[in-house]
């Protein structure tokens, strides 16, 4: 029957489109996928993606205003502090390791060690030496990122950013010494950090 044939073709096409759509959705494991990951590591990074997503939806649900361009620096600082306080109140028990659980931490350490030992290792090391590093002892979960008084930030080597799992807009990786931190950019706040992430 032509009708059932069309129906079957329609079903096949729908399945194909759905598969393509799933394949194109960027996931937190996208960058890391370039490296060889075991099934257990993939599972850990999916868990990391879930935790990051949950943090972002929680942050977006807060009523505090995000920064908008203005000439009034005082207002920008006020809004940033208000957002930070709102986040702090929404997760009062946040602690180191909430995002970087032991299995997730071990994948991150493995990815970074492997990348630094790889063909681009020397360039990454040189890039890390390029800016003045921040002292990791000042990192506190839920605390302000310690650059308030103009302490220079360490640029994150681009090659390293290509192997780490992608972060959604509003979050970024930061390196302080050998520590890898995740920073909420709008609130200028440490969400979690991983000591000895770099070998």
């Amino acid at each position, binding site marked *: 029957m032509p009708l059932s044939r069309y129906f079957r073709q329609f079903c096949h096409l729908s399945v194909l489109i759905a598969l393509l759509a799933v394949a194109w959705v960027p996931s937190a494991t996208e960058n890391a996928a370039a490296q060889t990951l075991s099934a257990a590591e993939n599972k850990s990074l999916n868990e990391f993606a879930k935790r990051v997503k949950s943090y972002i939806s929680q942050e977006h649900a807060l009523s505090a205003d995000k*920064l908008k361009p203005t000439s009034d*620096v005082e207002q920008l600082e006020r809004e940033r502090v208000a957002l930070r306080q709102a986040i702090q109140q929404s997760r009062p028990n946040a602690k180191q390791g909430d995002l970087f659980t032991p299995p997730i931490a071990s994948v991150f350490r493995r990815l970074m060690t492997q990348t630094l030992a790889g063909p681009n290792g020397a360039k990454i090391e040189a890039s890390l030496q390029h800016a003045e590093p921040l002292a990791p002892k000042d990192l506190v979960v839920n605390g302000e990122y310690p650059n308030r*008084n103009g302490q220079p930030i360490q640029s994150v080597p681009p090659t390293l950013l290509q192997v780490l799992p992608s972060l959604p807009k509003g979050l970024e990786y930061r390196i302080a010494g050998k520590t890898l931190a995740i920073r909420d*950019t709008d609130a200028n706040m440490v969400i979690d950090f991983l000591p000895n992430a770099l070998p």
Partner: protein
Amino acid sequence: MIRVNTSMRFAKFLLLPILVVVYPGLHGDQSSTPASVASAPDVRLPLKKGSVRWAVIGDNGTGQRPEQEVADQMERYWRAVKFDFVTMDGDNIYGGHSPRDFKQKFELPYKQLLDENVKFYASLGNHDDADLERNYKPYNMDGKRFYTFRKGDVQFFVLDSNYMDPAQLTWLEDKLKTSDAKWKIAYFHHPMFTSAKSHGPDVDLRQQLMPLFTEYGVNAVWSGHEHVYEHLKPQSGIYFFLVGNSGQLRYHNIRRPNDLDVVGFDTDQTFMLVEIAGDELYFQTIARSGETVDSGGLTRQTSGHNAP
């Protein structure tokens, strides 16, 4: 006692003048006499009708006297050149980022230019507070870490070299690919090439950016970070400049001899003037003293994926 007095006299009359000549901008030095801001500037740009003209500064935001004196020279040249905007290579504000800091380190030094509606387009350095500065309206970043803007035939790609993540690289490739501008200019804080000793070139950044710049025909690149001025030899056909001394300065910080620089200048603060007319880019680099330390013209390259 006599020996001490003789030594003091020796220091005062012999050593001090030598030091002032070698280090004309020593902090606290009152004897540096920048060219009078009232006198006519020595403009070496052709000032062609309809050309795109701008000034370049980098590592400027100290709030100290040399920054102000560079700004005074900029204002002096603006009267003759009438550049429309200023590009900033990063480290726009050093130290604290309170409202008072923004005033002292940006609004006051450049007040006369700001009053003349000269626009500033900032990029982010490692000393900048990215989140405050990208939302600070006078920097024209529209809340973004990296962005693009166009002036006539020239499109500028302003990058955040502190955090060159895959999202930024994808954005850059997309914007370069779709740009139909005759001139493509990129600027960002960390240099990919330099002969300065303090930090050196960021080779990891170079590895990521150069393939895009060469494939899509970027014509010229500006950076800062090193507190010197460098006009570099073309790299893969691309023109490179480094202006990281519009407020800060590291004396005698350029390795010499080197195979990289056409001109290297590390004994005073500088800013640059640039003019693009048709296929020509003209530039003039002016020291805080008012002296022109470099000038010339460059022709638009015809290589690159997008070049007509």
